[in-house]
């Protein structure tokens, strides 16, 4: 903003074409920031920082896109000089992620709910210890320090909530069925399988946590497409996942363009459910239509969903139950 004002001013003074001037002024500005960055006034003891390569998280490993493509992301504040390359996921990345998610889901769902709960609690612990880093990342996206801290706290508390729900789902959702005959019958909730998630654009951390963690608590594995403008917060969160004892492949995070990634996910036969957050326009409708090929369970959540309220988030079975199956078992009774 400030720069464009300068450009106009200079253009007025010089009475020349603004475009030409802009180039000149930009060069001028760069030179100044060059001097700042490369330490014209820096003490010689200040070190050169080690920049982080942000990667996607698939199968418990941090990977670049198989396509080798990337896109550039920058913090919203002009004082933030860092511009980074983020891997841009491809259709093949989606297929690879679904494959590892499929394999991981078998063992994840066969763990005891107690064990799943402990791992999700461990995730909360990992987030707690990275609170500052997560909040800093949100500030980099343009949030105030106070809002950023609040969002991180709520996101952690959401994890704690779902850590404790794993071994309550049966008590809350199962039933003994008093059938009219000499049979013993019961119905239990079971995991659905691989769930494809399109995370909301904002809030970037709480939205990601609220769209992924409840689904995982039910014993599913997830391939999530991160849609926030700056996926760096998501990337830091996947580092929490990686250190939380969550088996590799249970949560897989891809970055990139929805137009490319969502249709592949919606058509994939090994994906059993879709959780679509926010208004995705025609893309969302197309995904719902593609999902019919293998009769996927599709759940849409509005941008206004309570879960995306930065101040509180939302908790409840409504975020878990759509991604569960019910299995009914009958057995005769008698001597």
């Amino acid at each position, binding site marked *: 903003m400030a720069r464009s004002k300068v450009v106009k001013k200079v253009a007025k003074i010089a009475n020349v074409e603004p475009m030409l001037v802009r180039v000149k002024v930009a060069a001028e500005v760069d030179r100044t920031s060059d001097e700042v960055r490369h330490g014209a006034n820096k003490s010689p003891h200040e070190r050169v920082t080690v920049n982080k390569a942000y990667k996607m998280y698939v199968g418990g490993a941090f990977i670049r896109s198989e396509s080798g493509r990337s896109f550039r992301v920058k913090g919203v504040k002009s004082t933030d000089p860092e511009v980074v390359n983020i891997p841009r996921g491809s259709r093949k990345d989606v297929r690879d992620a679904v494959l590892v998610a499929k394999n991981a889901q078998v063992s994840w769902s066969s763990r005891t709910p107690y064990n799943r709960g402990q791992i999700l609690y461990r995730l909360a612990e990992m987030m707690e210890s990275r609170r500052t880093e997560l909040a800093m990342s949100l500030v980099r996206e343009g949030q105030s320090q106070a809002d950023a801290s609040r969002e991180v706290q709520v996101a952690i508390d959401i994890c704690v909530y779902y850590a404790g729900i794993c071994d309550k789902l049966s008590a809350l959702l199962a039933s003994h*069925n008093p*059938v009219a*005959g000499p049979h013993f019958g019961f119905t239990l909730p079971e995991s659905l399988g691989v769930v494809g998630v399109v995370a909301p654009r904002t809030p970037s951390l709480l939205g990601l946590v609220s769209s992924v963690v409840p689904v995982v608590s039910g014993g599913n594995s997830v391939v999530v497409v991160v849609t926030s403008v700056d996926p760096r917060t998501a990337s830091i969160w996947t580092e929490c996942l990686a250190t939380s004892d969550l088996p590799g492949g249970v949560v897989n995070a891809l970055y990139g363009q929805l137009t490319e990634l969502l249709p592949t996910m919606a058509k994939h036969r090994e994906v059993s459910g879709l959780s679509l957050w926010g208004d995705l326009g025609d893309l969302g409708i197309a995904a719902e239509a593609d999902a*019919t090929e293998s*009769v996927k369970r599709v759940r849409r959540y509005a941008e206004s969903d309570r879960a995306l309220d930065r101040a509180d988030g939302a908790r409840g079975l409504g975020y878990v139950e759509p991604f569960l199956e019910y*299995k*009914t078992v*009958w*057995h*005769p009774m008698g001597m």
Partner: protein
Amino acid sequence: MGKLSSKIEKKRDREKPAIVFGNQWDYAPAPEATDFFKLNKRYDLFIGGRWQKPRSKSYFTTISPSTEAVLAEVAEADDNDVDAAVLAARHAYNRYWSRLTPSDRSKYLFRIARALQEKARLFAVVESLDGGKPIKEARDVDIPLAIAHFFYHAGWADKLELAFHGRSVRPLGVAAQIIPWNFPLLMAAWKIAPALACGNTVVLKPAETTPLTALLLAELIEECDLPPGVVNIVTGAGKTGEALVNHPDVNKVAFTGSTGIGKRIQRAIAGTGKRLTLELGGKAANIVFADAPLDQAVEGIIGGIFFNQGHVCCAGSRLLVEESIAPVLMRKLRDRMATLRVGDPLDKNTDVGAINSQMQLDKIRELVAAGEKEGAERFSVSCTLPKKGFWFPPTVFTNVSLSSRIAREEIFGPVLSTLTFRTPDEAIEKANNTAYGLSAGVWTDKGSKIFHMASKLKAGVVWANTYNKFDPTSPFGGYKESGFGREGGRQGLSAYLEVV
């Protein structure tokens, strides 16, 4: 199995020659009476509490599949008729049904249950006539279960908050419901009872080959004096169903039928925000372990595949037998099959009735021919089939390969495909190797094996040492391409509610 034991087995086989059944023993006919009622010559549409002539001016006939005799003419609803029905349902929702106290809604449903009990025999006979199913099944299964569904859901109407742990609930509005021809009244009950209990109003379309009991139900609902438009019945075929599904003022679509149509419906309403539940096809594995009580298992296999001529989405149509007992089990199965009586559905001794339609018969024949062509061995019961009507003898295939069409596709007829396995893991692998996931059966004497198998099978209903059991308290519905949502039980309520 060792050489010695197989020798003993062979000896036992020789000692017990198979009894000859088939037409050796004649049963005296025992037909159910049909003289105590008279069907209308022509049925109109039940819209807004009145019988309305179709705006389409078009009627079609419904026949008895066992005699091909015309039973009645039935209105064919077009887009305008469907529009009128949805409008009536919307009006009834706004004006009556949503204003009633839950307790009053409940009492209306109890009324329907009671009235159905009073007319149970009429419904059983018409069901058998119009659909071709044996009277003993209509009488002992379809109608009592339909009644039970109304009775069960009546009790839920004023307890919905309790069902969702204090979360608040609200009805969805107008439900469009499309049901198949295999259990016409029962499916109508599965759809209408929970929808009304949860405070919705409905437009129901019965299948074109079996519309009569739904129309009788409309008459009964009229007698029960439900507010006009709470239940609307529109008859017709696929086009009528399409109009209903695509109507913009419908909030919920519930469909029971084939996976192919189910996918089309899901696609048609993609992005509309309409709520959907689908109860689709199946290709259930019925798994028999060597330690199973074999005679019980044989009864279960017979009931699993020949109940209702195999026109059952959850039919145990893939028999998986542990290899060591396959010869014995198959012999017992063939012996038992030979005692099945195929014929007049209205005869109280009949076990297997008529195939529902010419179209279905053609489909069964096509798949059976494909099975023979693919090298499977066919055994069909030798029985004299009536000259008129649509019939297919109970049939079992052995030597079926997993890739064969008769092992993969839903035949929806009295045709069983048999495969063998050696280990529990192989049984699980084979059972789950299908796009369907509606139901499964497990036969074993070992409790731990039952629970292991039940947890590994990807199916919405698992019957252990039993098969084809249904109850309104027991949620029913599929995994994978067998659809989503449940019918029955507390879990079934969420199909008709917005849970906040």
